């Protein structure tokens, strides 16, 4: 019985999930562009600061069960608007007229599908778990901190204690996507 999941497996699963969602729903190819860190937060991982000044739309979906965790998907506001238009067949003007709500919902669904793909792979590996409801964060110059940190930006999110953190970067259509995974196996 598998009791741990390797970083390779995590990287493979999230890469496949991101690629599958972007290819199927948006006809975009996604290329893995590197990992930032995989430190245990107790050992003091640095906060993730995606891009200092570019406004971000961040989708968040968790999973609970034999594996628990949260995945943040960082997409720049500009790319998020473009993806929304492509997914819904809307012009940039129509997306703009729809306001943040339309973009939030679209990015929320992209995140839901991506995290779904990732966690379904966990389920099939022997760690049954279920998805939680999607939420969206918006802003710039903010970070997700693995533990309380001296550096605080606009806001921070406290993750599950003793979780392992994996940050992966992807390139898509000239934009950068970042997935920030905080997870632990078992209760």
């Amino acid at each position: 019985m598998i009791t741990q999941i390797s970083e390779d497996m995590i990287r493979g699963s999230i890469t496949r999930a991101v690629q599958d969602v972007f290819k199927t729903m948006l006809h975009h190819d996604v290329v893995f562009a590197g990992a930032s860190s995989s430190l245990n937060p107790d050992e003091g991982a640095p906060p993730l600061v995606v891009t200092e000044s570019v406004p971000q739309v961040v989708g968040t979906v968790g999973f609970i069960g034999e594996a628990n965790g949260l995945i943040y998907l960082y997409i720049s506001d500009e790319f998020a608007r473009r993806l929304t238009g492509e997914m819904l067949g809307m012009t940039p003007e129509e997306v703009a007229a729809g306001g943040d709500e339309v973009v939030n919902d679209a990015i929320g669904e992209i995140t839901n599908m991506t995290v779904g793909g990732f966690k379904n792979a966990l389920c099939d590996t022997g760690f049954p778990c279920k998805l939680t409801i999607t939420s969206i964060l918006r802003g710039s110059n903010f970070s997700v901190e693995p533990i309380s940190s001296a550096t605080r930006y606009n806001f921070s999110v406290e993750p599950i204690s003793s979780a392992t953190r994996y940050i992966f970067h992807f390139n898509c259509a000239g934009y950068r996507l970042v997935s920030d995974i905080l997870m632990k196996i078992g209760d």
Partner: protein
Amino acid sequence: MRNKILTVDDSKTVRIIVRKAFKPFDCDILEAANGVEGLAVAGKETPDLILLDITMPVMDGVEMLTKLKADPALKSIPVIMLTAEGGRDNVLKIAKIGVRDYIVKPFKEDVLIEKAGRIIDLKPLTDGPAKARSILDPIDVLIIEDKPAIVQQIQEGLKHTPWKFRGVNTTGEAIDSCHRQVPDVILVSLSLPEESAFTLFRLLRANIKTKYTPIFGMVVKTDTTAQQQAQTVGFTGVITKPIEMTDIEGKVVKALNLDTSLRYFTSEQEFFIMRLPEPCSTLVLSEVATYLKVKVAEAVDRGINRAIIDIHELRGLNMNVIKLLFQAMQTYKELAMQFALVGNHQIISECKGFEDTRNWTFYETMEQAKASLAAGVSAAVAVPA
């Protein structure tokens, strides 16, 4: 009655994608953002199909599905799960509650339509009669026949049409060909090995894209067993061998409801022309009679007030032709149109032999008829009341 499809998903994005996917089909899309709303809409509208997400606030999809299946009035409504919640065990557990299919997001719209089409009768929305296709359109005909001579015979025999023919040898190739591009009409040999034409027919009818494509079986005239079998399973029709091209053409025209009026009615400059072809069968006369008033009215509406009746192709006259010609002349007179007749020596001579037609004035060429009408001379014809 239009099918009603209920999409239950907390994501408006998914509900929009679902609505978009079903737009080309004759159905109504109902929406709900969670299980509670979903049950309420299902109770009120009794949809024909429910597409159900799992992870939703207020009431999730599993709870809604359980309540739906416990309600005698709603339990028979088919449900397709459309959710990011996958994993073998999850899917099996939910399938046991009673779902007809399970689609794990991300999903292609085609897959959704195909799976929904297996459960409900999804009819593509058709254009109105004004946009109906005509015999001048390049109809795409797929021929599945392992005897190349037959394919060649059909292509040669129907080369006067603008139709495009694709010939394949096997049913496997036919499926690939349909997948690449759905043909307008399919002709399949019923004598392909192992009754594969019938297997292909079932596969094509199970696919939403080819569900309504006319499919004709081709078989030797004496093989009545295969003909009966084809009719029993629901082939659009049977074309018997040896093949008569008029048979194929007529059947395809009828199955696709092609507008054939352009065969008989055209406009050249300021002239409206009605032309009868040879052979001028009862079917032709019936078609011309059907289109006559509408086409003349359209021409008048466009400002045309001169007409030519061209029967120079005919080898002879009969009472049905004469009756139609009188009908046309009466229509022109009612709309104060000037008209002229174009005929050959045989026709002109035969007209002299009938009491009602002996005074008809014919021109031998279109140019003469046009020149006469341009000069203000109309055929002096007595039209019986």
